[in-house]
């Protein structure tokens, strides 16, 4: 009998560069505040497994997907675009289309920095659930909240503005927590951030 997919795991497929980090961290926070579990390729630290295999495994384990394609632009240093986000978006769609009954229940949201920009680079995704966050973490939280609340069964989901207010409080507390844990905020791994968010939410909602 196949292993059931966790109903509350959310795959976050986003850029990992420094400029995008405020939005990525905010999405991770919103996912946990809504009672879900954030998953990302950043959680991979097992060198014995091929990276793509690990990403496939995480995608397989997640019913929900948040895909941000804002970084589909030419890199200033290399002059080349990065295709990782679109590759992982394709894997998610492939899983949903060709997977078994459990995989067909997958749902996702696609985020971009500007409305309709995707039409110039990946027009084939026209008709999907695509939203613009305008490059702000507050909008990213609100878009993710509204989509996830609608895509899942109603279960006392907090409102977007409430999550934004809580996230700002978490950001205020983060330097003190990092000092107590002898870790610089910039050095936090995905696992560090996830567990700090979970624990903080248990005492600060």
């Amino acid at each position, binding site marked *: 009998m196949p292993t059931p997919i966790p109903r*509350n795991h959310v795959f976050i497929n986003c850029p990992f560069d420094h400029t995008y980090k405020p939005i990525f961290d905010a999405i991770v926070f919103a996912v*946990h*505040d*809504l*009672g*879900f*579990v*954030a*998953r990302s390729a950043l*959680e991979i630290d097992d060198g014995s497994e091929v990276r793509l295999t690990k990403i496939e495994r995480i995608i397989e384990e997640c019913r929900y997907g948040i895909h941000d394609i804002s970084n589909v632009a030419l890199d200033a240093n290399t002059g080349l675009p990065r295709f990782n986000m679109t590759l992982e978006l394709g894997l998610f769609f492939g899983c949903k289309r060709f997977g078994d009954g459990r995989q067909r229940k997958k749902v996702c949201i696609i985020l971009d920095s500007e409305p309709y920009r995707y039409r110039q680079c990946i027009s084939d995704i026209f008709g999907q659930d695509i939203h613009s966050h305008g490059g702000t973490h507050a909008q990213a939280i609100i878009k993710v909240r509204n989509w996830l609340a609608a895509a899942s069964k109603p*279960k*006392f*989901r*907090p409102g977007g503005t409430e999550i934004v207010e809580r996230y700002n409080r978490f950001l205020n*507390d983060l330097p*003190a*927590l990092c000092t*107590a*844990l002898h*870790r610089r905020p910039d050095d936090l*791994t*995905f*696992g*560090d951030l*996830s*567990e*700090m968010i*979970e*624990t*903080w*939410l*248990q*005492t*600060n*909602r």
Partner: protein
Amino acid sequence: MAKTVHVFPSGKGWAVKRQGSGNTGAFFLTQKDAVASARFIVKKSASGQVAIHGRGGRIAAAYVHGLPKIQKSPVKSSLGSRNIEKAVSELALERLNSA
């Protein structure tokens, strides 16, 4: 208003206090009575949760009402769960005691 009602050690007993409430909170001799009181406060409100701060800095979410339960991630921090709980608990208690 904050939605978390805290149960924490205070002298030889246990205190119950909501963050930012402005009052001194309530005092109980046993943790069990303190938790029961905190649950009652949360149950009366539209939504809320009870957080128990253990004497060693451990945190337990005892009761959640009208809010989604926070789920545990399979990905763990190298900082250690106990250390994170202690840091978060100390910060929350510092705030509660200074209010």
